[in-house]
């Protein structure tokens, strides 16, 4: 099978999603942020799929989102305005940053769907009141799904949803552990394809592919040098062209990442509780936070990312920022300071919808030369 299937799902997401929808007979709901409780959608036999951009220049969102908001949210909305998701039955967002919220609200205003839901995901996730509040919000969401589909969601259905998502998370974690090896059996690019395939696909199908991939990776040896072990830190980073350039041209490997198209999506499981909605609320409040929900000192995400950097033997970190992404801009100085204090040099790059490979290559090459200086002299 190989790793190619995940790439194929990423590159042909619409074809796959249409096929999965047709094959399963399920409704399909697009979500805009990884705080979406996919478990509840699977409980109702709905396939949740993440809506991401296409990394192409576009001119359709200017009347809808002011240009000071991140290019990512505009790219996401462009997909809807261009009709590329015309097979979705519904959309939903779990409250996160202001930027992506606009992609959802403009979609809600201009692209007809049968179901549209705004879930009040709390921001202050570390506070004791966040979990009971989210628990109630999840029940409200479940009620809205029931009213839409006509299907009553029973505890056993929620258990089914949790089992599907937890399987995905467990398999990805096992695969991510393999990336700690001196010569990881999987590149950063392949790893990101896997996560994206999970976000785009019917997890009941993708989990089987992950299982096969895990077995293959246990004995796989790559015909390439690992080079410098890098970490990528950022928001939403399906900037495949950049990752590919760093790994194939610059001679390095991304062995770990902190972003929501990577580890932050799947890191923690739902821990079973009798009260299923309390269990779900705990999972989403306790997951590695998006910076917009990380208010504490020291930042939870920073502690987590630094630990990962150490555990995965990272030599340098590339700090990626989507242009105009305020939550990350507010964390980046603290992140760079802490990483560099821990002996991990950082390179800051600002990303737009398309990746300027030439200029970025020069900067990455210079960064890697700096990392390698002990070998040079």
């Amino acid at each position: 099978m190989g790793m190619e299937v995940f790439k194929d799902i990423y590159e042909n997401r619409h074809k796959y999603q249409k096929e999965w929808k047709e094959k399963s007979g399920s409704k399909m709901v697009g979500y805009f942020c990884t705080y979406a409780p996919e478990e509840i959608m699977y409980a109702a036999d709905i396939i949740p799929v993440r809506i991401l951009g296409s990394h192409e220049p576009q001119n359709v969102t200017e009347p809808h989102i002011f240009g000071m908001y991140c290019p990512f949210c505009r790219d996401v909305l462009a997909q809807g305005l261009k009709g590329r998701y015309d097979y979705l039955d519904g959309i939903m967002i779990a409250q996160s940053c202001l930027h992506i919220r606009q992609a959802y609200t403009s979609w809600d205003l201009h692209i007809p769907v049968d179901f549209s839901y705004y879930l009040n995901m709390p921001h202050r996730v570390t506070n004791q009141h966040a979990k009971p509040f989210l628990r109630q919000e999840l029940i409200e969401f479940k009620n809205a799904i029931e009213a839409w589909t006509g299907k009553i969601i029973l505890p056993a259905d929620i258990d089914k949803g949790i089992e599907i998502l937890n399987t995905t998370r467990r398999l990805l974690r096992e695969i991510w552990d393999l990336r700690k090896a001196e010569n990881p059996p999987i590149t950063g690019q392949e790893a990101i394809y896997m996560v994206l395939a999970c976000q785009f696909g019917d997890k009941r199908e993708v989990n089987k592919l992950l299982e096969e991939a895990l077995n293959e990776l246990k004995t796989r040896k790559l015909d390439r040098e690992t080079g410098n072990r890098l970490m990528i830190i950022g928001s939403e980073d399906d900037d495949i062209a950049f990752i590919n350039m760093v790994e194939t041209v610059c001679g390095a490997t991304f062995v770990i990442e902190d972003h929501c198209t990577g580890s932050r999506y799947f890191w923690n499981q739902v821990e079973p509780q009798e009260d299923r909605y309390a269990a779900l609320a705990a999972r989403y409040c306790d997951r590695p936070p998006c910076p917009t929900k990380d208010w504490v000192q020291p930042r939870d995400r920073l502690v987590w990312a630094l630990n990962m950097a150490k555990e995965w033997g990272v030599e340098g970190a590339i700090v990626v920022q989507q242009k105009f992404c305020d939550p990350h801009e507010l964390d980046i100085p603290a992140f760079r300071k802490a990483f560099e204090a821990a002996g991990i040099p950082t390179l800051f790059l600002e990303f737009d919808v398309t990746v300027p490979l030439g200029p970025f290559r020069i900067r990455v090459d210079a960064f890697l030369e700096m990392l390698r200086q002990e070998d040079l002299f």
Partner: protein
Amino acid sequence: MSKGQLYPTEPLKSWGMAKKAREEFYLDYRDCHAKGGIRWAGGAWALDALTYGLGDDVFSITSEPYGASCAFNKDIAMKCMETAEKYGYARDLCAYMRIYWGSVLTKGTYPWGGDYPIPDFIYQDHICCSHAKWYQVIVDHEPQIPMTCIDVAPGPFMPGTDVQIKPHQVKYVADQMLEAIEWLEKTTGRKFDDEKFIEAVKTECINTSTWANICVLNKAVPAPLDEKTMYSLYVLNTLCKANKRITPVLKEVYEETKDRVARGIAAVPNEKARVMSDTQPPWGFLKVFRYLERYGVVSIGSLYTFGLMGIWEVKEDGTWGGRTLPWEKGIEIKTREQAAYVNADWNLSKPEFQHFYHPKYKTRMMTRIAKEWKLDGVMLHYNRGCEGLSLGIAENRLGLLKAGVPVMIFEGNMGDEREFDEVATMARIDAFMETLGLKKDY
């Protein structure tokens, strides 16, 4: 009568009173340590009634009005923003926030003299991406300052409409407030006084409802107040909306405005057309509003001036007015738990909170203002300085146009003059006036 004058006009008598109250706020904050008082920092949107439970000698600085005050002085603003940039913070972040950080990090930038007075604690709330992080960054640089922040994002809520909030959503905020009381006691070493808290909650209801009712008076033709003047009045609630010291000032403004309406006193004596703006203005370029007057145009305010610190409801007759005070509806406030719930409920209905959930709510309110305040057009400030209040603004433009309201947009920044093109903005105004069929009187 001067050229083009259609109505009598006269200066606002309560102006000086309002300016004095504003200055006292900043001086009290700076000087209170000398009298054994406590000072704290937080946003203008913070649920500050709570802090009155700590005593009468507790003074705050609210970061957004502070940023605006600095922005009015372009030299101070630039110095502060350039400092923030030197520390690695991006230039596209909130302008108030960068100015505030720069003021904390740079000596001699407190506009009322001296260095920025470091607060004893930080008590913030969070609805936009920057609010909690604003002070998290301050604590990065001043780690000795204790900080807490309340999540106020479980809306939407528009009293008197079909957009209603659920009890568990209000409770979420109220529960955090009750927890914050314990934090405040621990942080300051003071015992919390429930009576003072309850009094502050009631005062906030009075002050913010009164401000809404002052804005209602501007439905009159000619308008008794113009937007530029309103900035010096609405600011009182942004500084200390739960403070009983500003209640008589607001009452005086209300009575005087009512009297101006009765006597037909105009803010703009050649009023021929009426517009409103939106979001914060470019503070260093308030001359924009004076330029409108040359065309006989009065800006009667904005959703921002009306709804940031005015609390509103749709009345039984279908019009928009100050929200009915809780005790007038039989709601008693006798315990801290009741006070926290009422205060959370009251604040969650703030008009400027609602577009965070969907631009359709803001479009709905602006369309209402356009009709009830008899407007000829709307000027939308695409404000690069505030991601929170520019949120959804492009959809507001489309929504207003769909509702038949002429719209002009201009791009700028409330605090960073580097992002405001004065000449281009004036040219846009000229073009907009032409579409409204207006010519300059002078």
